[in-house]
């Protein structure tokens, strides 16, 4: 199956490497980064492109754009992995819209467009008779959307709660283990590349809240936006507070929670027993889904990273191939 990919940062490179190194039956026929693009209907030589990107910072010809890639038509699935803009969703939103309009399946890791325009995009995909999949937008490598849609099909999902941000989880783990202050732990997270230079989105709980918006709209059709989430971050947590939790044989984690029946849509630091399944270490993510038949189901895994996000993207691509492309 043929793939066009927009975005060639760490996630894009992770996908390209997996396509190149594993026998997945996938061919990348076009590829764009922010300043250049390459199109080859017979398949791009990925090693060649990776090398060029490393040497010149460009994946292809500066005269070719992402829009040319979308319009090229030489692909079955558009993989959209450009950087997220949580305010406007652009330029990803435009890319996804155009690909869907031209009757192409889309797989994205981009939280902005899915959080902002879930309903409209899904309607557009349905009217073009194509798939839009977004597993990589929530909890990285954890197959959460797949589990909710397929694995738990037939269940009524009554709520969910979990650890949705690896950066915060790392900071809290280090504050607990080593008694580091919040700012020391944040500095360490930055040095290890777990936190952005501007960590606001992570530590203030906004990243976790965006993921809740995606889940609230996709699982329950709640039609909510970021302003509907009650958000408290971890940036005012003290080492003393973690030590006090320890006295109760507990710890503190940043928990995202959705309980539609009680109108709960909330990100906040919470006290959890140390042996609670959501008390995961370092940058891990964990989600407990509450259902009527299966009871509680907890998924734990890596929430970020190049290969991990590539895993979620590739599973979406293969799902589309197996269920929609090869059948038709």
């Amino acid at each position, binding site marked *: 199956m043929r793939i066009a990919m927009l975005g060639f940062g760490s996630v894009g490179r992770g996908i390209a490497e997996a396509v190149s190194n594993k026998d997945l039956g996938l061919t990348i026929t076009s590829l764009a980064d922010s300043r250049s693009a390459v199109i080859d209907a017979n398949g791009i030589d990925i090693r060649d492109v990776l090398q060029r990107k490393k040497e010149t910072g460009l994946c292809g010809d500066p005269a070719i754009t992402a829009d040319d890639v979308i319009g090229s038509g030489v692909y079955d699935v558009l993989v959209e992995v450009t950087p997220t803009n949580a305010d406007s969703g652009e330029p990803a939103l435009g890319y996804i819209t155009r690909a869907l309009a031209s009757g192409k399946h889309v797989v994205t890791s981009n939280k902005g467009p899915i959080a902002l325009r879930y309903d409209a995009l899904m309607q557009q995909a349905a009217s073009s008779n194509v798939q839009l999949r977004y597993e990589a937008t929530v909890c990285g490598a954890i197959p959460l959307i797949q589990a909710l849609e397929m694995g738990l099909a037939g269940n009524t999902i009554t709520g969910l709660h979990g650890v949705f941000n690896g950066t915060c989880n790392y900071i809290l783990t280090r504050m607990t283990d080593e008694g580091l202050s919040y700012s020391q732990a944040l500095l360490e997270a930055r040095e290890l590349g777990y936190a952005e230079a501007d960590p606001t989105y992570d530590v203030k709980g906004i990243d976790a809240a965006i993921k809740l918006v995606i889940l609230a709209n996709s699982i329950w059709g709640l039609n909510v936006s970021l302003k509907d989430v009650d958000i408290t971050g971890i940036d*005012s*947590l003290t080492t003393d507070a973690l030590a*006090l939790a320890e*006295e*109760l044989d507990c710890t*503190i984690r940043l928990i995202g929670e959705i309980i539609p029946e009680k109108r709960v849509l909330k990100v906040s630091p919470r*006290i*959890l027993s140390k042996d609670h399944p959501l008390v995961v270490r370092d940058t891990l993510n964990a989600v407990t889904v509450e259902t009527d038949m299966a009871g509680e189901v907890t998924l734990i895994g890596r929430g970020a990273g190049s290969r991990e996000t590539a895993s979620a993207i590739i599973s979406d691509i293969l799902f589309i191939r197996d269920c929609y492309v090869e059948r038709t």
Partner: protein
Amino acid sequence: MKLEMKDMPGQLIAALKPISDVGGNIMAIIHQRDPAAAPGDTVDVQIMLELPETKLESLVGTLKTQGVNVVRIGEERLLIRRSVILIGHIMHTDLTDTVDRIDSSGLAEVAELGMVMPAINEPSSAKITLKSASLGEMGRAIDLLRNVATEKDLLVIEPLEGYP
């Protein structure tokens, strides 16, 4: 309450059924059977339960008709405990008032308070344990504490589970 009943099959059920019939909520049962007891001896059973006070009399009456003797009825206890952590200027926003507002609400009592004050002008952290008679009242007490904290610009960290 502590009950005395004949050590015979079916007796425990005879004691428990009336409790649920009057809308009581059984929280714990301690039933220690003496291995040396002969059939027909009596056995003591302790039951911890939640029950509207108005139903107590009719429950005791029903139990007696079932051949179950009520040895002792314990006083009402605040059985539900929840701990929350507060962060902020806890002392300087009148800690006494914070505690009073919970205690005077009639919903819960502050049972324990532990506090760490790192330095002047730096936020302190406190662990507050509330006790209450029911989950519903505990929930309302924590709602109240949350409102007081918002007013005083304190961060409340609540437990994830066990609080409806």
